[in-house]
């Protein structure tokens, strides 16, 4: 099991291969559908004019995401009334929904990895090569366990998107993941998809 702390260098990323188990530590940011759409429309494609605190958040994100990791997660959080936030349940959500956005977001902010579940497609795989970055697969559903690795919730942006969709800035310690897409074009998901399809075709021929 490799131990890696954010911010992550390109050398460390290029060293990672499909199948590697990693324990991640350091600061990362959660983002899912609403956040990705917002980042793309407001700052990358600029099809929507910045509103409210958008520009202020953007400046902070530029620093936070540089060399860091985006976590596809919609957590259960306590302390919403007191602002003394704590993650109670925080497993990964399905990543493929961010496929239209992910590669552009990674390149724009120099994000070194995304954590999620289920893997992503060809566009993101290409983004992983170009950035370079990797896809880290977390254990779907292991929400209480993963919440325990979140040692600090330091900030939250866009809480008006709702608790699951907001961007939470968290610090983790030894967050367990498996590299399933690397920066050399390797994808465990493509491999398993193909091998299972072969078995399926055999079964269907019976």
């Amino acid at each position, binding site marked *: 099991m490799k131990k890696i702390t954010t911010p992550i260098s390109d050398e460390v990323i290029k060293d990672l291969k499909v199948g590697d188990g990693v324990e991640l530590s350091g600061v990362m940011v959660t983002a899912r559908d609403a956040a990705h759409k917002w980042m793309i429309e407001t700052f990358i494609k600029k099809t929507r004019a910045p509103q409210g605190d958008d520009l202020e958040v953007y400046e902070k994100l530029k620093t936070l995401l540089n060399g860091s990791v985006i976590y596809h997660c919609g957590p259960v959080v306590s302390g919403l009334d007191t602002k003394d936030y704590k993650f109670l349940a925080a497993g990964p959500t399905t990543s493929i929904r961010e496929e239209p956005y992910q590669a552009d977001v990674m390149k724009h902010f120099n994000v070194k990895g995304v954590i999620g579940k289920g893997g992503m497609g060809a566009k993101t795989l290409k983004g992983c090569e170009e950035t370079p970055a990797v896809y880290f*697969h977390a254990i779907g559903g292991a*929400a209480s366990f993963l919440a325990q690795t979140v040692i600090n919730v330091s900030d939250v942006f866009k809480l008006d998107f709702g608790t699951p969709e907001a961007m939470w800035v968290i610090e983790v310690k030894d967050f367990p993941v498996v590299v399933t897409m690397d920066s050399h074009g390797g994808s465990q998901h493509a491999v398993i998809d193909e091998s*299972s399809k072969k078995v399926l075709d055999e079964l*269907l021929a019976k």
Partner: protein
Amino acid sequence: MKDLTNEILELIRRTSSSLPPDVEKRLRESIEKEAPGSTARGALETIVKNIELSRAKSTPICQDTGTPIFYVHYPLGWSTIKLKAQIRAAMEDATKKNYMRPNAVDAVYDNNTGNNLGGDDFPYIHFEEIESDDLVIELMLKGGGCENVSRQYSLPDNNVGAGRDLAGVRKVVLDAVQKAQGQGCAPGILGVAIGGDRGSSYIKSKEVMFSEMGTRNDDPKLAELEEQLTKESNEMGIGPMGFGGKTTVLDTKITGLSRLPASYFVSVSYTCWAYRRRKLTIKGEEVIYD
């Protein structure tokens, strides 16, 4: 009639934080089938640790606390209007207590209601009057990621080469498992309904999953198909989370419905390993949780 809001709240807490023993047992057994040091085994070990932790701390097993699906079996004399109001009050309370994540999003205006109460259908409640003295409330919290990989087929299906018989049913179910890969948080459980219209077929494919793991359909033909589908699904090597491995499907449940001569639907509901279902029984003054 008794106010059951607190009892239902406790049912929600248990369902969200404490995985049923029969599901946990299957998961523990499957660890031994995976190679030592493999990512598949590591995933299952983490899953089991998570089950223990969430039970001990009363925190949600998964942050996606799912679609709440209630089945209320009530004897004569209970008011379904009042029971519905109590279920909704308990749901709101459970959200405040963080047993549930705010999970009801208005599909037209995109806002999250914040309390798990959507329109009339969220939470989903099915009432059934029964000839018994006991009131039974069953709750399933059905995850969204696995719901997204559920599928419905209209047979014949030429892509898969599936005709209108059990051989065709087998083919489309295997196809659904392959297409799901690890995205429904494998290992999963399959609920299959054959027949019905599109709506009733999907509903029954979920209902059939309320039965205990390992129990088989009374019809020997369907019982055999259940066993076969679990075995053949696992031969595909998709494994926990799609990492590759031997454990892809933990169990398969099939039910047969009536259909129109014109239609032959097969609905495959996929449920993730976080298969949260619990039961509350009111027996006179006694309150029993399973």
